[in-house]
């Protein structure tokens, strides 16, 4: 671990950064974390089993336990077609994360050794997903994962990413940098779920670039960690690209879940659609900050952004910062942000039909969440998310 960098880190430098507005900056710290310990063989075996069970029939599987690659598998078809899906210690990134993550990423890059590369050749199609599992099992450890996805011209692929931990592996730090490059005419979907232990911290950036006529979809679930911040930058770089991104954040306890996004339109005729759904329990906080940026050249852009906050407790707080910055005139751009609680009429209706109040509330809450869960590209992540949400509500 680069002690010099982590010691010299000072969260105060973020105070005046607009990209950190409303965030509890004092929670961000980089020092005091250890390198992960050697994982127990039995634990590793357990995780590999779980991964194989969840990723049945996948085009490829990579399993990491505390940054160590412990299992890898690539289907015969993927191998024959020349797909690359492997661990790599150095990732050649071609995009630059922004949104206030610059300093954290500088630190990440100095220490990161645990990367994943997915590369799909042009004109190649994989219907089954590539799946990455990252389990944490050393309490108080720090990890610095990275990933780079490159989909060739007219290619087609799906990726599922799991970040999870047992309750014992608590108070960890995860700093993650990711990049998705989708070439002209290609199609790519990515599901991501984070269910880390309750006192952990996770800071993550993702840059997505879509070429001409490319279609890129993403679904993010943020369920765990005390402080989770994601910075997503979507860029429609080619004409008529389509970007569709959805996130569901379920915050409880003292959690702060913070999602900052940019939908950048750098080419004409592209469409982008971004949906953020936050469910807030206990004393949790969520922040959604999104910008639609339309360049002068990006005429005929159609960009939509919406944020829906469902506040389920009187101590939770939801911050919404939707935004538009438009430099082209022939566009249709809109954003919406709402904050409220469960609809009293709907609740009354369910109670009338004999449902206990807790069940009725759960049913309505699941209804709110389904719009995101149902958008998952593969059922592996959707099932996992449903289990985790049930756990989260069940322990209440």
């Amino acid at each position: 671990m680069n002690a010099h960098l982590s010691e010299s880190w000072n969260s105060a430098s973020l105070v005046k950064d607009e990209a950190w507005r409303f965030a509890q900056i004092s929670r961000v710290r980089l020092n005091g974390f250890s390198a992960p310990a050697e994982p127990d063989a039995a634990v590793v075996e357990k995780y590999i089993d779980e991964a194989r069970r969840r990723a049945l029939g996948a085009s490829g599987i990579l399993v990491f336990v505390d940054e160590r690659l412990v299992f890898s598998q690539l289907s015969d078809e993927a191998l024959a077609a020349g797909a690359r899906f492997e661990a790599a210690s150095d990732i050649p990134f071609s995009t630059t994360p922004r949104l206030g993550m610059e300093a954290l990423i500088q630190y990440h890059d100095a220490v990161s050794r645990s990367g994943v590369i997915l590369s799909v050749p042009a004109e190649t199609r994989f219907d089954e997903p590539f799946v990455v599992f990252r389990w944490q099992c050393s309490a108080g450890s720090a990890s610095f994962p990275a990933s780079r996805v490159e989909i060739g011209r007219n290619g087609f692929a799906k990726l599922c990413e799991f970040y999870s931990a047992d309750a014992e592996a608590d108070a960890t730090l995860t700093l993650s940098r990711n990049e998705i490059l989708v070439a002209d005419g290609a199609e790519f979907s990515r599901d991501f779920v984070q269910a880390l232990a309750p006192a952990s911290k996770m800071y993550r950036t993702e840059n997505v670039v879509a070429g001409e006529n490319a279609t890129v979809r993403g679904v993010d679930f943020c369920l765990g960690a005390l402080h989770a911040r994601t910075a997503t930058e979507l860029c429609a770089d080619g004409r008529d690209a389509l970007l569709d991104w959805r996130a569901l954040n379920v915050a409880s306890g003292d959690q702060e879940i913070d999602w900052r996004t940019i939908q950048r339109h750098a080419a004409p005729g592209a469409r982008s659609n971004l949906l953020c759904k936050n469910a807030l329990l206990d004393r949790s906080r969520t922040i959604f900050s999104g910008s639609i940026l339309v360049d002068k050249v990006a005429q005929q852009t159609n960009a939509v952004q919406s944020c829906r906050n469902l506040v389920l407790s009187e101590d939770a707080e939801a911050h919404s910062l939707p935004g538009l910055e438009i430099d082209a005139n022939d566009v249709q751009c809109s954003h919406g942000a709402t904050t409220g609680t469960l609809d009293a009429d709907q609740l009354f209706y369910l109670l009338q039909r004999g449902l206990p109040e807790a069940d009725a509330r759960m049913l309505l809450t699941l209804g709110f969440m389904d719009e995101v869960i149902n958008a998952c590209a593969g059922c592996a992540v959707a099932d996992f998310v449903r289990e985790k949400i049930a756990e989260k509500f069940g322990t209440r």
Partner: protein
Amino acid sequence: MSETTAKKAPDAINIDRSAGDFSVAEEYAFDAGLGLSERVIDYISDAKNEPDWIRAFRKKALEIFYKKPLPTHWAPEWIKDVDFDKIRYYLAKNKDAARSWEDVPEDVKQTFERLGVPEQERKFLAGVDAQFDSESAYSRLKADLEKQGVIFVGPNEGLTKYADIFRPWFGKVIPTTDSKYSALNSACFSGGSFVYVPKGVKVAQPLQAYFRINAENFGQFERTLIIADEGAELVYMEGCTAPRFDTATLHSGVVELVALKGAKIQYVTVQNWASNIYNLVTQRGLAMEDAEIRWVDCNIGSRLTMKYPGVILKGERARGEVLSIALAHTGQVQDTGAKMIHLADGTTSNIISKSVSTGEGRANYRGLVSIPKHLKGCKNNSECHTLLINEHSATGTYPAITVHGNASQTQHEASVSKVSAEQIFYMQQRGLSEAEAMSLAVNGFVNDLVKEFPMEYSVELKRLIEMEMEGSVA
């Protein structure tokens, strides 16, 4: 809008401001000179013969002004072009506001004439407090209003004659420390209005004040405090035009509204400054129980406007509203918005903003809605819509909405679009010229807000938009 129009008229909306684009030679009895210093503050205080507490207030504000940084956070770079050392902070023709129209000097009358503050209009107005540079050159209240106990004077008269009403609220809604510009205003304010409407009095006619800048390099720092006592109601109207000058001119007013229990205040602004003016205004209202404050705001002129009228909803069931129209053409940035701070149960607020960017203009919406902990039944609705006319027109929308707890509701929506070629084509089919069609489309876009302005303003606004659109197709 068709491509041909875009090419023909890169600067589609070109307001003819020549009506207000003139300057009459003035002789000033009081002139504090260039720059700001403690000496200037003393000069102002001496000239106005002010009590000591105001002098101390000004000096404290000056200290804060020196300490505060420029609001570089989202302001354009060229906000730094304002050279505080090259501004005259106090100019006045004479100290006392003229009591009757006959006392108003002829050249001032001439200026009013061209501005469209006609003498005959007085008949319809409850009172005219037409500010000519620093001091009220003319101030008059109709006799029946005076009988009702309505006070409508300048702030200087307010703080000397009516200190018991004035002092408890002065600087309370907008503290001196609010920003660099509110500190600047607190240090060297002169002119503006002080209005007090007693309990239960409903002022039937709108109170009007015309503001005008008429000296090069002269920042105008008017200060307005309006207090509506329990159950009182009033409408206050403020309109601006200014002559064009070459060097940057600063306008930095502070407007404080206080609506006590059950009171209603509506504050209407039409801002049409010349295109070299920096219009950096702080406006905020405090609404107590069951009170209602409504800002109706229209920004057409100036080089840069940064104005975010706000309402602090302090009493239960208080209501705040901001209706805003902004028009930005080439060389202009209209950075306007609204702030709604909910501090009691059952408070509601509504923000509707419509802006039009033409040529290379930029119109931004910047908003803040805050509903803190444990409040129940608070509601906010905010909508902002932007129409982009030309290829190089730009816009930004930056709301921030914070809700604590599960007993309140907010909703926000924003959209950006242009006048579609189909709309224009349809209207041209029916015999309208392209300019008429564009004018109709833009007027239709802002129509629901224009209707909210008092009648005479809404007629003027409609005409103004029509005029601009005529210029859009040569």
